[in-house]
């Protein structure tokens, strides 16, 4: 029994129903599945439709609905459940997030400018490309115009990254040249951005959707570009932020091994507020990246810079402090380390297991690379053979080749394509002169005098793929051959060195590696964790880093006593897929990564890959297809000064209690399959809003009438006084509108204030606003000139109110996006403009300030984007014109005319009966006149429907005048005087509304009370005498069943003659419109209504002839002196009469001759 209604489906039909209900004082919730109300019926989402004149004309309705005090609009929402019965429904509505706060966003487009993501236009469709954050509809004014973000999920690159870096995000940032922000995004997830940018195995690139078009985006190199080119200040800022966060107490965590996993964990723990000590066996931190990487791939300074960034967070690294003999794990625990992370990596080489491995000159690749990096002496012969074509193997070979060896040969038992090393690297090695031999396996190493002399190999072939698709190699007998060599580097994979456990096997499995829980990385012993190669050997560096991150989370939770497994999962997120058949992507070359030329590589250890420059990096980043649409780069969040962007928005549940529900019939909701059968609903109190074939809106109004009747009946506990109940449920919102009157008194000395809106920079970036503000400071009557940021926000309005009061302003000119101070909503208006205006105008009367609005956005800044200087000059002129218009304004107050709350229905066809019954059952005083004695109808179904209605009508005590004819209508709008003759007897009615049932004029419906002799005022006659009855077709402001003169409604036209449903709907629609008027009780006078200066009128009557609305007529002011008089209820405020008045007696508020001349003067001088 809330007395409220729910309308589901926010297209124009749903909006019409909601508006009728709301206008009659019923609170309505309007639920629309798309992000904005729609002008069209079926919501095709096509931009072409919006520019059709028909839809533009309907936009004011949407704006009105979205700003109506009685309508609550829920966009991106759908009804999930309806419970309860007629008159008492409990409805659950789920509102999908739009990621932008509807109440805060001012649609200033600042975020859109910063957004790096261009959504690919769909081929074959007219929708243009747009940014990931955008207005709900493109190229038109949408209501609400609040921005929204398109999010599709997790992009494949991010899903593929073990460490979960927001890859699409930083690539998008780089495409905008935002390097610092990109690096922030990378380091948010991982340490070592510079190192990863060089040596990462980039699974992201393998997953890249672009690789299905041409080639994957060069993500790894882009990361390197960001890491190498960010400003040092940015990295310092990050460090400080973390340092302020760390607890200054004793370190609680010991980390064994200062490799990628260990240092990552230490860094992440620091960021979570835990201090840690890192124990490193080798003399320098970095582990494999320090000792296992040759300098030409990873220069020392680079990796040192990354390590320094971590150390700077206050992490203590104790180098040359091996755990084991001198310091055991239990001893660490005794020292007060509550948690221990084992991240020792895999530094032990796998053995070949063939004869001759012990010979002098056989060296394992780790020891080989480590010796170089530790600057220990290594003897390398002239003929080097590297066994194993993995990363370490190739690195070893390329190191050897730089030492002027005669021949460096890499052999592998697999084929070229099956090598784990990056193909680019193999190519680079080949360029440098490294030879390769594939599908060969060593049988034994041949020695001479204890030294290596050669290796014997055997050729292999690939076997059939096994269950997992792997192909094993099978030796080919008889293909043995000998290769001469004096150094053999064994690079057949590494395993962790677990000697530090001192033979304790509780943590390990077969002494090979440490066993951990795959999710939490916890070992069997509480408080001891393991990450990286120590736990799972053979994985690339990015996995070690990812595990370091996970270990840090587990340790943090362990120290805090939280559940380590909560909200974590090993399940891979399913990345979004782009249907490449649907989009056209022009092929673009992957930008090649520049390399040091071969001649400059030999004999030195200079870095080979050189990285992108700004130009190539941006070009490469722009190749990204933005699979997930929004990249979550957070640029919009940074750009929005109002904090309206909320990326973490989730769907919200809204609970509603309503008495009646109206649903658009074409709404594609699963719910309706259970609720709707054909053209009716299963439950009473739920009404379907049908579409009419020609798109007319009266069915929507008809539903509104049904709901009005329904609600009134439900609440009519006291049957004697239905009106009291009706007024109780219908809130009196008219008050708010009345407060919006204009200044009533003219001030003696004007004190003007000028406020200029920057609209979040979208105006200021073209117009030199400080210049404009300064120009008007202290000029003439101007006492105040200020710039405001967002004039349509409450904060700015309050600022304007306060300043206006403080400075005693009488006239305020706001230069923003609004362009008039009228209440009306034109089809050129926008929702922010409506808000801006209504905020300021609501206080107009209270403060006695005249507000004038000047549009410097759509009329200046946005159309003169490349003429900044001229635009600034123009803005000054426009403001000057607005000020002149304000100063020339005449004091006037907003008028409304009280109407007679009674309705006359003329004609007793089905439509007329329906209209009268609907109005009467709502307690409105209604009279029906008809020509014949009773409802007579040749067709049977018509007859039964008519008789039913007639019974209903009579039971409500409605006055029904049979055998009656309408003679004439006179009087003024709101107080029409109708003369009716019944059986030759004359009766007079004063009425506020009159409904004509025109079906009476046709042959099928013999009952009409409108005769050819009826005298109607010309304006009414004009509306009716048209054979097509155009006023049912969206004329006069698109109001169904309404005509231009207020209070005159039509029904029973067109199809109604031979279709019962049509006839009833048209009648109900007219009833709805009349009920709105009856509930309001007033007619609003057009603000631009003409006014007569009687002293100047010479009674020529020109105005009377030009007025198309019969709103102005000559009357006798004093006997024999004729003078023009305006019927304010009828005046539409076009100003035609003003232009044609020869004596200047007529004027128009807001557009008087003086105001227009003053504007011209301001513009042209």
């Amino acid at each position, binding site marked *: 029994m809330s007395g409220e209604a729910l309308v589901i489906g926010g297209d124009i039909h749903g909006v019409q129903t909601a508006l009728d209900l709301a206008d009659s004082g019923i609170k309505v919730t309007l639920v629309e599945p798309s992000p904005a109300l729609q002008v069209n019926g079926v919501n095709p989402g096509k931009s072409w439709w919006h520019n059709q004149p028909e839809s533009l004309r309907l936009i004011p309705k949407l704006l009105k609905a979205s700003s109506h005090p009685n309508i609550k609009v829920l966009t991106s929402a759908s009804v999930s459940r309806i419970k309860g019965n007629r008159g008492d429904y409990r409805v659950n509505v789920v509102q999908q997030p739009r990621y932008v706060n509807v109440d805060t966003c001012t649609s200033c487009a600042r975020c859109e400018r910063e957004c790096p993501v261009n959504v690919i236009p769909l081929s074959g469709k007219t929708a243009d490309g747009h940014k990931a954050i955008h207005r709900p509809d493109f190229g038109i004014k949408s209501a609400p115009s609040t921005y929204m973000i398109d999010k599709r999920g997790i992009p494949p690159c991010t899903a593929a990254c073990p460490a979960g870096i927001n890859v699409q995000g930083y690539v998008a940032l780089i495409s905008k040249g935002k390097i610092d922000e990109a690096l922030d995004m990378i380091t948010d997830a991982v340490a070592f951005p510079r190192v990863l940018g060089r040596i990462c195995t980039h699974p992201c690139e393998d997953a890249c959707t672009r690789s299905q078009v041409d080639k994957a985006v060069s993500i790894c190199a882009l990361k390197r570009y960001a890491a190498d080119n960010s400003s040092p200040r940015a990295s310092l800022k990050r460090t400080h932020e973390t340092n302020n966060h760390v607890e200054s107490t004793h370190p609680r965590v010991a980390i064994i091994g200062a490799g990628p996993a260990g240092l990552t964990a230490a860094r992440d723990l620091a960021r979570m507020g835990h201090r840690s000590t890192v124990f490193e066996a080798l003399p320098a931190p970095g582990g494999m990246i320090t000792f296992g990487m040759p300098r030409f791939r990873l220069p020392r300074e680079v990796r040192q810079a990354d390590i320094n960034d971590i150390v700077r967070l206050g992490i203590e690294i104790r180098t040359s402090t091996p755990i084991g003999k001198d310091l055991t794990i239990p001893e660490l625990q005794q020292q007060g380390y509550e948690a221990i992370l084992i991240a020792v990596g895999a530094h032990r080489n796998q053995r070949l297991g063939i004869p001759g491995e012990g010979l002098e000159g056989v060296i394992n690749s780790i020891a080989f690379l480590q010796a170089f990096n530790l600057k220990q002496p290594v003897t390398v012969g002239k003929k080097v053979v590297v066994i194993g074509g993995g990363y370490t193997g190739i690195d070893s070979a390329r190191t050897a080749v730089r030492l002027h060896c005669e021949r460096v040969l890499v052999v592998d038992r697999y084929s070229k394509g099956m090598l784990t090393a990056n193909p680019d690297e193999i190519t680079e090695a080949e360029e440098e002169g490294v030879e390769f031999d594939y599908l060969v396996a060593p049988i034994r190493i041949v020695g001479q005098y204890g030294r290596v002399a050669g290796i014997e190999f055997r050729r292999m072939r690939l076997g059939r793929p096994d269950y997992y698709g792997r192909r094993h190699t099978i030796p080919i007998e008889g293909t043995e051959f000998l290769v001469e060599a004096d150094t053999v580097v064994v690079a057949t994979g590494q395993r962790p060195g677990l000697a530090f456990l001192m033979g304790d096997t509780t943590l390990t499995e077969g002494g090979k590696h440490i066993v951990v829980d795959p999710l939490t990385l916890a070992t069997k012993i509480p408080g001891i964790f393991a990450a990286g190669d120590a736990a799972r050997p053979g994985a690339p560096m990015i996995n070690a880093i990812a595990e370091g991150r996970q270990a840090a989370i587990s340790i943090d939770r362990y120290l805090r006593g939280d559940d380590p497994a909560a909200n974590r999962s090993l399940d891979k997120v399913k990345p979004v897929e782009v249907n490449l058949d649907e989009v056209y992507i022009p092929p673009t070359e992957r930008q090649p990564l520049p390399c040091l030329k071969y001649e400059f590589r030999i004999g030195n250890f200079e870095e080979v890959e050189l990285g992108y420059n700004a130009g190539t990096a941006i070009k490469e980043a722009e190749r990204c297809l933005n699979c997930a649409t929004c990249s979550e780069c957070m640029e919009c969040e940074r750009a929005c000064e109002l904090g309206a962007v909320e990326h973490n928005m989730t769907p919200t549940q809204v609970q509603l209690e309503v008495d009646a529900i109206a649903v658009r019939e074409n709404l594609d909701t699963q719910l309706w399959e259970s609720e709707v059968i054909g053209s009716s609903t299963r439950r009473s109190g739920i009404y379907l809003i049908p579409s009419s074939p020609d798109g007319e809106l009266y069915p929507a109004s008809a539903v509104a009438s049904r709901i009005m009747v329904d609600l009134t009946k439900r609440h009519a506990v006291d049957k004697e006084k239905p009106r009291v109940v009706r007024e109780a449920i219908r809130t009196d919102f008219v008050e708010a509108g009345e407060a919006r009157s204009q200044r009533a008194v003219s001030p003696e000395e004007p004190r003007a204030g000028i406020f200029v809106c920057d609209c979040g920079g979208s105006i200021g970036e073209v117009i030199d606003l400080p210049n404009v503000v300064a120009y008007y400071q202290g000029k003439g009557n101007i006492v105040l000139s200020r710039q405001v940021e967002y004039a349509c926000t409450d904060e700015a309005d309050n600022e304007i109110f306060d300043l206006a009061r403080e400075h005693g302003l009488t006239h305020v000119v706001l230069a923003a996006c609004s362009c008039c101070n009228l209440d009306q909503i*034109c089809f050129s208006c926008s929702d922010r403009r409506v808000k801006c205006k209504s905020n300021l105008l609501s206080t107009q009367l209270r403060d006695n300030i005249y507000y004038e609005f000047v*549009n410097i956005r759509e*009329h200046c800044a946005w*159309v003169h984007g490349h003429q900044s200087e001229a635009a600034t000059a123009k803005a000054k002129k426009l403001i000057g014109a607005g000020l002149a218009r304000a100063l020339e304004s005449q004091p006037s107050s907003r008028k409304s005319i009280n109407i007679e709350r009674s309705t006359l229905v003329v004609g007793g066809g089905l439509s007329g009966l329906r209209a009268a019954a609907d109005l009467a059952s709502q307690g409105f005083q209604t009279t029906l006149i008809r020509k014949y004695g009773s409802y007579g109808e040749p067709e049977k179904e018509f007859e039964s429907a008519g008789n039913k209605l007639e019974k209903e009508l009579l039971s409500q005590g409605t006055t029904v005048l049979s055998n009656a004819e309408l003679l004439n209508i006179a009087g003024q709008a709101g107080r029409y005087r109708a003369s009716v003759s019944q059986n030759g007897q004359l009766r007079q009615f004063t009425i506020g509304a009159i409904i004509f049932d025109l079906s009476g004029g046709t042959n099928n419906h013999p009952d009409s009370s409108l005769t050819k002799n009826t005298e109607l005022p010309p304006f009414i006659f004009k509306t009716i005498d048209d054979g097509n009855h155009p006023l049912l077709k969206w004329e006069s402001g698109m109001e169904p069943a309404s005509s231009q003169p207020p209070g005159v409604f039509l029904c029973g036209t067109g199809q109604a003659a031979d279709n019962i449903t049509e006839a009833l709907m048209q009648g109900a629609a007219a009833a709805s419109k009349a009920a709105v008027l009856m509930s309001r009780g007033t007619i609003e006078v057009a603000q631009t209504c003409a006014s007569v200066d009687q002293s100047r009128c010479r009674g020529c009557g020109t105005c009377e002839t030009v007025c*198309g609305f019969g709103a102005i007529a000559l009357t006798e002011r004093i006997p024999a002196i004729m003078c023009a008089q305006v019927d304010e209820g009828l005046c539409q405020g076009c100003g035609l009469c003003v*232009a*044609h008045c020869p004596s200047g007696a007529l004027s128009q508020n807001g557009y008087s001759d003086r105001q227009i001349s003053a504007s011209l003067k301001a513009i042209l001088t």
Partner: protein
Amino acid sequence: MTKLDEYITTDFEPRIVGFVCNWSAYSGVEMAGINKMEYPAGINLIRLMCLGRLNIGLILKAFELGADGVMLLGCPPDDCHYECGGAKAQEVLAQAKGVLNLLGIDQNRLALIEVPLGREDLLLRQVSTFVKRIGKPKPNSRRRKAKVASPV
């Protein structure tokens, strides 16, 4: 003294006043704004509820104040929001052109541009044609002598 015809033969940015009807034409101007379609900053628009509000006096006032051109931007006559405003505007246009001839002002400096709703592209095309015509008038020695003074 601003001399209108001083501009005529020189390369200048014409000062143009556009009287805009609140409905189709204004909506076109707005859509041009939303879609950021650029036009010369010398065009200044004055909004009216309907072009029917204009009389010759207001049009001549604009020329008197030194406008190089005056555009009347309105709806097609059969689509007037107030039904007969468009037709009245055409009458006023014809009268005003006659007076302009008498005053020695090229009557091409006054134009009525009727734009259907939703055709901002058409609106801007017609406006730019008008601006080009004003910016590069044909040299006419007789008219060059005509001077229109502004009160400032």
